[in-house]
């Protein structure tokens, strides 16, 4: 971490801690991808966040939490999948589940620009997993079609759906897992 730029200011200072309201005594500056970021912390929060322990400390983490004002309009949002709230995020500094990124889209998107080099992924894609997913999505849809067709006594459609299901099933690769 940027020890050289960690300035302990022991003089009276009007700045307030970014994490709580106490007077800030530790001021950090870091340059991430040519953007300057500043964080002001009180002694307690600096200790708690491990600012003195360079291996455990991430300024990005701090920026992240500091940017989460409890008064933002998304403050009442909950993740449907895992029940996570914005105050949980502020407390843990981590999200609850992958679906949280949908639920807290409004909070995440503005952060990404300061946190990362860009806002869109351009790297590796889990090709096999995505192919598998598209097959499963297709199957789910066909099964729905089948039920619907039977219900409304469209037997020709039902037969077509059934044929297609058995066809798609043959292309299914090994069984994937997730702890749902």
């Amino acid at each position, binding site marked *: 971490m940027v020890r050289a730029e960690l300035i302990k200011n022991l003089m009276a200072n009007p700045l307030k801690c970014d994490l709580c309201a106490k007077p800030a005594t530790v001021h950090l500056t870091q340059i991430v991808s040519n953007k300057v970021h500043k964080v002001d912390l009180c002694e307690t929060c600096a200790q708690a966040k491990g600012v003195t322990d360079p291996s455990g400390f991430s300024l990005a983490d701090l920026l992240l939490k500091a940017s989460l004002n409890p008064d933002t309009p998304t403050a009442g949002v909950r993740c449907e999948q895992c029940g996570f709230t914005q105050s949980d995020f502020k407390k843990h500094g981590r999200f609850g589940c992958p679906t949280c990124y949908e639920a807290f889209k409004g909070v995440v998107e503005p952060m990404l620009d300061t946190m990362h080099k860009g806002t869109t992924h351009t790297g590796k894609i889990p090709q096999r997993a995505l192919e598998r997913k598209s097959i499963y999505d297709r199957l789910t849809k066909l099964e729905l079609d089948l039920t619907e067709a039977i219900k409304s006594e469209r037997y020709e459609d039902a037969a077509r759906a059934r044929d297609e299901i058995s066809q798609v099933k043959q292309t299914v690769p090994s069984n994937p897992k*997730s702890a749902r």
Partner: protein
Amino acid sequence: MTIASLIDSPSELTDAASSKTAIVLMTRIRLARNLSGTAFPGWAKPAQREEILRICREAVAATSPMKRSLNITVGELSELEKQILVERHLISRELSGAKGGAGVVISKDQAFSVMVNEEDHLRIQVLRSGFQLKKAWNAITELDSALEDHLDYAFTPTLGYLTACPTNLGTAMRASAMMHLPALVISNQMEKVVRAVNQLGMVVRGLFGEGSDASGSIFQISNQTTLGESEGEIIKRLHTVLQSIIEHELNAREKLLEADAGKLFDKVGRAFGILQNSHLLSSGEAMNLLSLIRLGIDLAVFPDASRSVIDRLFIEAQPGHLQHAQKGEFDPAQRDLLRAARLRSEFANFVHPNFSFSTNGKN
């Protein structure tokens, strides 16, 4: 494979003498991966963590690099065993402190390790001795793709791999190199380097200590951001930064030799004397002395073959390894005695310094 046999077997880090290079000790890449539709480890209920652990351990064990691996839960490891794995960079401190439902799978050669339920469901890591970013990437992406056959990853086209912390989104990749930079430290240039490297979007950390006065002059340089660039671009950029740090270190060495070779060789010679004769050595002091011997090797004061011995000692002088070798637990003061004894015996048979070939310095 058991933890006892893993601890006692040669590892990529300490025994791959063939690929040892002067400045980059080790290359490491790690990827964070999570299961779709599943709460992240920090938010999952205990029973769910156990379920995630079971699924992931099984999937990891089924891949070919992980044949005959060590596959163990954190709960099954003793404090000392955890410390040894941390010192070998095979698990993180965070994982070693995990309460329950966490585990690790480590390949037989200790080049791969996969932590389960650390901050993310999976933290896949590959270690390669020397400067081998490309090789490390090829190895890790292969393991990652093999895991994809068994696991549904949380991924979106725009945000990439979804991680518990938004700072890891996108590639979820951290690529790093462990560098030995004694001349930059001696000539007080590390702070300048840290700042410059920061501006290029890379992070510098002392490996055995804090910031720019890391003991042993060993630093870890890694990418700061993970979203908006491909893995290849990040690696290329890191490679360029590392290359330029290497050049700076070599320049600094040359300058030190030009300015006052006697002073530099004096440091190396004294370090050798202390390692041969001292009776109390703290971990920090031992690191610094070993660092000077390593510099001596680069300057041809000692033969090249000794480099892997020093790299092994860097690890073996750590508290966990020291206590394991002595088969017991010792307080820090006792450890300093043991460490000195261990290094005395190691340096009793070490090749003596030869300063006559070293006048024109570089390796």
